[in-house]
C-alpha cells in the first residue's frame, strides 16, 4: 500500500509533529517502504483468530483505594519548562 503526501500530512497533524515539504517527500518513500513490509500481513489467514493484545493470559490486579502519594510538587515542577503559582504554564490555544 502506498501512502500519499496528504496521508502523511494528516498523520503528522494527528501526531503533532511539524513536517516541511522536503520531509514529507522523504517520509513518503520511507513510510511507503515500511508499509510495503507490513503489507505481508495481508497474506496471513487470520479468520477465527483472536487478536492478541498481551503476551500473557493474565488478568488485571486491582489496587486498594488508599492514598499512597504525598505532595511532591516542588520536585516535579523543578524540572518543568514553565510554572507559576504552582501551575504548569503553556501557550494559549489559538482557535
Amino acid at each position, binding site marked *: 500500500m502506498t501512502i500519499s503526501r496528504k496521508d502523511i500530512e494528516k498523520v503528522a497533524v494527528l*501526531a503533532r509533529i511539524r513536517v516541511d515539504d522536503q520531509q514529507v517527500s522523504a517520509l513518503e518513500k520511507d513510510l511507503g517502504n515500511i508499509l510495503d*513490509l507490513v503489507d*505481508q500481513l495481508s497474506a496471513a489467514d487470520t479468520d477465527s483468530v483472536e487478536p492478541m493484545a498481551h503476551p500473557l493470559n493474565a488478568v488485571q490486579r486491582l489496587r486498594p483505594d488508599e492514598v499512597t502519594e504525598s505532595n511532591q510538587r516542588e520536585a516535579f515542577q523543578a524540572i518543568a519548562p514553565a510554572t507559576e503559582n504552582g501551575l504548569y504554564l503553556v501557550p494559549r490555544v489559538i482557535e
Partner: protein
Amino acid sequence: MHNKSVAELSRELESGKISSVELTREYLGRLRKEDEQLNSFISITEDQALADARAADEQRAAGKATPWTGVPFAHKDIFCTNGVATTCGSKMLANFVPPYDATVTSNFRNAGAVCLGKTNMDEFAMGSSTESSYFGATTNPWGLSRGEKRVPGGSSGGSAAAVAARLVPAATATDTGGSIRQPAALCGVTGLKPTYGRVSRYGMIAFASSLDQGGTMARTAEDNALMLNVMAGFDPKDSTSIDREVPDYTATLDEPLKGLKIGLPKEYFTGNLSAAMEEQVRGAIREYEKLGATVKEVSLPHADLAIAAYYVIAPAEASANLSRFDGARYGYRCKDPKDLLDMYTRTRAEGFGEEVKRRILVGTYALSAGYFDAYYLKAQKVRRLIQQDFINAFKEVDVLMSPTTPSPAFVQGEKTSDPVTMYLEDVFTIAINLAGIPAMSVPAGFVDGLPVGLQIIGDYFSEARLLNAAHQFQQVTDWHQREPQ
C-alpha cells in the same frame, strides 16, 4: 581486575582483597579513558558512584552484604534514576532528571550495587545500531584495532559495548524486538531477555508496552543469573508484572544438560543467513550434543510474518506512549512557541530524531480511522499465530536455538539510509517479543574476527533453564572470554 566477572568481583570484595571504593576508582579511571573511543556512556556519575561505593564498603563491614554489594555496573539510560539525568538517548529528555527511581534501579540500589553511569542507546530504544542516539553513535570495540568503526547493535548498544570492552562487568538493558540479544551478539557478550512481565517496567521509559522487557547483559551466563536475581520479581506498580515466585537463578546453573531437547527452527536457517554464520552456529550446537543434548528440526510456520506484525504493533503502541513528550511538564520545549499547537508540533519535531518520528507516524497511521482493522487488528491476530507456533514447538522440545543475527556487526552508516534494511537485523529476535517468551544470546564464535551470537529461546518463565544451558556451554567454550583489542 577489569577482566573479572561479577561473581569473581563479589568474592574478592567478600574476601576483603579489595574494597568497593578501590574497585570503583579503577573502573571509573578505565571508563574515562577508554570510552572516548566507544561513546558507550551518556553520563558517568563519578561522585555518586564513589559515595555508593563507600556506603557499600560500610554495609559489607557491617556484615550486611549481598552478592552485589560494592560491585560496579551501569544502567541503560532508559531506566529512571532519581537525581541522575535519564535521557533515553533523546534530545527530548537531554536535561530530564527524574525525581524517582525505576523499580529496576531501586532493586540494584537496595542490593548495594554501584552504578557508574548511564549507557548509550538508540533514541527511545528504536534502532538496531545505537546510531540514532542524540548523544552520538556508540562504536563496537570489535574491529576497532583494524581501524573499522562498526556498530555495537542496538538499542542497548552502549551496555553491550561497555561490557565487551570491560568498562563494566555488567549492565542493564531492555529488549523490545531484539535490543538485548542483537547487541550482545554483535559485541560478543551474553544477554538475556526475560519473559514478559518477569522484570518490572515501572520507571523504564516505554517504547512498546506489550513488548518491552528489561533484562541483563554481562560476559558470563552466571553474571546474567546474578543480575536477574536482583531484577526479577513482582512489582505492584506495574500492572503487567507477574506475581510468581523468583527462583535463585544461580542455583541451577550447574545442572547437566544430558537429555536436553533442542529444536532448530528451520525458518531461522535459511536465505538470510550467511554460510559462515551458519557454520559457527552449527558448531555451537555440536557442542551441546557433546554435552548430551539431542537436536531436531522444528518449524515456526509464521516466522516470516513476525517483522511485519512487529512494525505495526510496536509503532502503534509507541505513537501513544510518546505523546506525553509534549513540552508541557518536563523535557524539551521549543523556543518561543507562538501558541499551543506551535509548541506541540515544534517541540516534537525538534525534540525527536528521524527514526522516532517515522515510527510515531507509522503507528499513528496504523491506528487511524480506516486502517485500524487492516493493520493493527490484523497484526494482533498474526501475533497470536506466532505465539501459537512457539507453544507448539515447546510441546516437542525444551529450548530452541538459532543464530541471534543474520550477520555480524556492520559498519556504521551502512544501514542508516534505509530503515527497512535496519529492521531486518532483528529477523531472528523479533518473534520472541511478540510471543513474550525469554531468550538469550550467547557468544558462539567469530566470523571475520567479529563475534557471532547463538540465540537460545525458552518457554515462558524458563529463564533458569536458559541460563543453565548457556552456563554449561560456557564451561566448555571460551568465546565469551575473548577480549577485543
